[in-house]
Every structure is written in C-alpha cells, then in structure tokens.
C-alpha cells in the first residue's frame, strides 16, 4: 500500500476512493493521510467517514460529492466545520455538489470518454443555480431540454474488492456501486483486495470480473482494508464505529487523537488491526455460499 500510494497518488490529484457503503478502502485513505498528501480534490458520492478523516487531516482542497452525512447516524463534523467556516484550520473547503444520479452520470461519461452525460433531472431544484456545471442540452430528435453533467476523469481511483489476480483482474459481489465506471474513467487505478487469487480462479467465473487488469496500475493485498466499511462474505460493517464517529468527529481534539492513534501511530493496516484484536471475532462474516454455474460447452 505504501508503494502504491507514493507512486500513484500525488499532491493536487483528483482522488476517488469509491464504494457505496460497501468496500470503502479506509486502508488507502489512512495511508494517504500518513504520507501527508495535500491539495487533493476528493470525489465520491458519499464522503463518508473516510473523507471526513482526510478533510480533518488536511489532505483536501476540494470535495466533489452528492450526500455528505454519516448514514443512519448524523453528520460528518469535520466536513461541516470546514463548510460552515468553523474549522480552526480555517481556509475552508471548496465544494462541488450534485445528486447521486448526477455523480453516477459524471463517472459514466468519464468511463465512456464522453465530455458529458444526459439525464432527465433537476427541474425545479436549486442545484443548477448552486452548481453552474449542471447544464442542459436539446435533444436532436424531440427538441426537449435534458439536464447534463460534465465527465469526471479522476487522476487516481482506488477500488477495494474481495479478490483479484496478480494482473489486477478484479472480481467483486454484493453492492458494486459505481466502481466500474470510476475505474474506467480514471488515469490510474489502484485495486486493494481481501485476497489475491490465482488467475485460474478469475477465469473460472469471468462474468464476475468487474475491472480488467489492463486498466489497473497496482494491486495491493490488504485484508480488512475496508473496515469500518465492510466486504460481503468477509466481514460485516462496523456500525458501532460509525455511531461512535458522531462524538469523535464532533470534537476536533478527539478527532485529532483518533487520527494520531489509529492512523499516524500505526505503520499499516496490519498494525491497525493488531490494535483492535476483538474486531475480527466481532465482525467476521458467516458462510452463505452461492452455488457455481456451468461454463462448459
């Protein structure tokens, strides 16, 4: 992870760590904080705790997003302090805001290497007034006006997955969010997996492959790399930590202490897990295996 981040994540980059609730690569975010990256444009649908931590750590210059809360719990307080102009650091945080559909459409355009994506949306809302990059286009057939969003092509996208082979051919299941589009839209792609598998495992079920090795810059093996997010079939979401974040992030000093203890004071994800030996037992997934299908002819 250390090498992948130092090689492929540079100051000033547009960085996407995707995953909708599922497979959010906290391990990568923590390594970016440890390496002290600055002036990043952080983009994802739901900044979630990981971007709240990176904002608190001073990595972010700008945030591109569509829903900035702590799901089912409350606020992302570092984000709020920055946007409400209450962060001690000051400076504040530039924001560029869409709806989920708008962000998904931006990644879809980026992945297809089109400059824009059309969608039927935003009529009657104040979003286009708040974000001038939401525009419209006239249909060449019906003449009707459709909303448009511009392509999003990140410098680097980091995707966490259940498994990949050494060449980066990556398979995931459960919620897949917008990772495929984000990866294809990106200049560089870092894949972080729970398990490195033989190429034969990938080839035994090719319909499960979401990201092909040809677009992957680096493969990192990092078990539990998504915690407190989760990996279907590997470990559950740590809802207790998401709840705890409400009070941790509410107090800048507590948040700083959290980062010191769980990010700066540990060398890597293994160290992070070693500090919390009870996690594995509490969150390890039960078995609920699907059956295989026949690819013969």
């Amino acid at each position, binding site marked *: 992870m250390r090498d992948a981040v130092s090689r492929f994540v540079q100051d000033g980059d547009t960085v996407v760590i995707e995953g909708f609730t599922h497979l959010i690569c906290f391990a990568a975010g923590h390594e970016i904080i440890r390496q002290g990256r600055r002036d990043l444009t952080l983009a994802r649908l739901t900044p979630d705790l990981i971007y709240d931590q990176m904002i608190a750590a001073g990595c972010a210059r700008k945030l591109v997003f569509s829903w900035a809360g702590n799901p*089912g719990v409350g606020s992302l307080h570092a984000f709020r302090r920055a946007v409400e102009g209450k962060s001690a650091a000051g400076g504040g945080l530039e924001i560029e805001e869409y709806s989920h559909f708008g962000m998904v459409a931006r990644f879809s355009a980026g992945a297809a290497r089109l400059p824009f994506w059309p969608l*039927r949306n935003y009529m009657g809302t104040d979003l286009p007034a708040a974000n001038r990059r939401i525009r419209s286009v006239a249909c060449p057939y019906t003449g009707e006006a459709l909303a448009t969003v511009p392509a999003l092509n990140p410098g680097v996208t980091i995707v966490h997955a259940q498994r990949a082979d050494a060449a980066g051919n990556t398979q995931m299941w459960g919620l897949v969010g917008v990772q495929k589009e984000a990866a294809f839209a990106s200049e560089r792609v870092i894949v972080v997996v729970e398990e490195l598998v033989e190429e034969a495992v990938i080839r035994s079920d090719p319909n499960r492959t979401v990201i092909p090795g040809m677009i992957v810059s680096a493969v990192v093996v990092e078990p539990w790399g998504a915690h407190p997010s989760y990996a279907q079939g590997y470990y559950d979401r740590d809802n207790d930590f998401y709840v705890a974040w409400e009070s941790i992030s509410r107090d800048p000093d507590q948040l700083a202490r959290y980062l010191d203890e769980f990010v700066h004071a540990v060398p890597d994800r293994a160290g992070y897990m070693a500090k919390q030996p009870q996690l594995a037992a509490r969150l390890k997934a039960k078995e609920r295996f699907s059956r295989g299908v026949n690819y013969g002819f």
Partner: protein
Amino acid sequence: MAAVAARELSDGEVVFVGIGLPNLACNLARATHAPNLVLIYESGAVGAVPARLPVSIGDPALVTGSLMVCGMADVFQLFLQNGRIEVGFLGGAQVDRYGNINTTVIGSYERPAVRLPGSGGAAEIAVHARRTLIVAKLNPRAFPERVDFVTSPGQRCAGRARRELGMPGAGPVKVITDKGILEADETSGEMVLAALYPGVTADDVQRGVGWPLARRAQLSAVAPPSATELRLLRDVLDPKGLFLKS
C-alpha cells in the same frame, strides 16, 4: 408514523426505500398487508429481504438473499428514470407549502448556518417516482412557507407546476406527520390538512406549520397503530429502538 406510512403501500408495489422510518414502514407493510412489496434501495439491492433492521441503505443484509444486485448506474437509469419506481419516500429538514424539500443548507448556500447532507438520491426520486410520500415531524421551523433551498421538487417550484417543468412523477401526494396527514391539493398543489391522529385537533397541526394551513372539507381520522403493528415494530423490526424514538 411508521405504521401510518406502512398503510400507504399496496401489495406488489415497487418502493424506493430510504433508511430509518421509511425502511421500518416498508418492512411493516411486508409483514402485514403487502407481502409482495418489492423493496429497492439506491445502493443497488432489488427485492431485498433484510434479516435485520438495516442501519444504512448499503447494509449487507439487504444483499444477502435479495433478488438482484445491480450497479448504481442501473438503479438510476434503468429503474428510476425508466419509471419503474411506484413509490418513493422522502424526508428532510424543511418541507414547504408545496412539498418542496430542503436537505441541503439552512441559510444561504454560500455561507450556510447549518450544512445538511445534500440530495443523495432525493432530487431524482422526487422527479421520477410515480408518487412520493414525505415523512416528517411537525414543527414550524421544519414546515416553513418556503424552504431555504429546493433540493427535491414538490408540486410547485418558483410558481410553476411540476408538469410544466416536465417531471414524470406525480410528486409528493402526502405528508405523513406525527399529528396528522397533509395531502397535495389537486388544483393548487398546496399541502392541505386531510387527516388527524386520535386526540389531535386541526389547530394542533396548524401550530406545527409555518403557513396558513388549508383543510379538506372532510377531515378523516387516522386509526392508531394496531396491537399487531406495535408488536411487529417494537419486538421484531426495531427491537433496539434504533429508529423508534418515543
């Protein structure tokens, strides 16, 4: 509120489920009168049968045993924009006279007094779901005459009706509150008082609303939660009281 919301759902309908009360309402409906309700979560889980109360709309329990899991581009393009969603649930910090919802900022957008999470999927749900149900507790600050920011469009936005604006869905047809139910008036598009909870007066509701609230000629009475509904909600669906405060 969860029980009242549940009664708004018909068996076999396709519902775009939000977390919290809407999720409780949908699962209560499935456990009572609407066993074939199809639950779709913006996270990509279709036909979910959560074995536990999901804390987030991306909970792994929504995936395990669901009918289909698809990417979010499919959720928004093939299901929502395609017109396949019959009911969408919405809530927010502010709901106004025409059912416009604000989940973005209190105060100005540039210098917000309070920064809220933003749209998420709410804007497109408000545009495309065949009908939406708003769930919110009454309080004059939560029900202003006009919202500070229109995140999700209601029946009229800046004086124009949603049909003129080209929105496919019917928009917010009802606002389910903790004291009564408001309905969109077919002609004016205004949210008007339609039903009262037991022991609640029209004035009680008016006190929780920041505009002069019109009333239906006939106000119906909302039946209190049945013993079954209460048992399911408290013992089965939300035993930890995660979302059932009070």
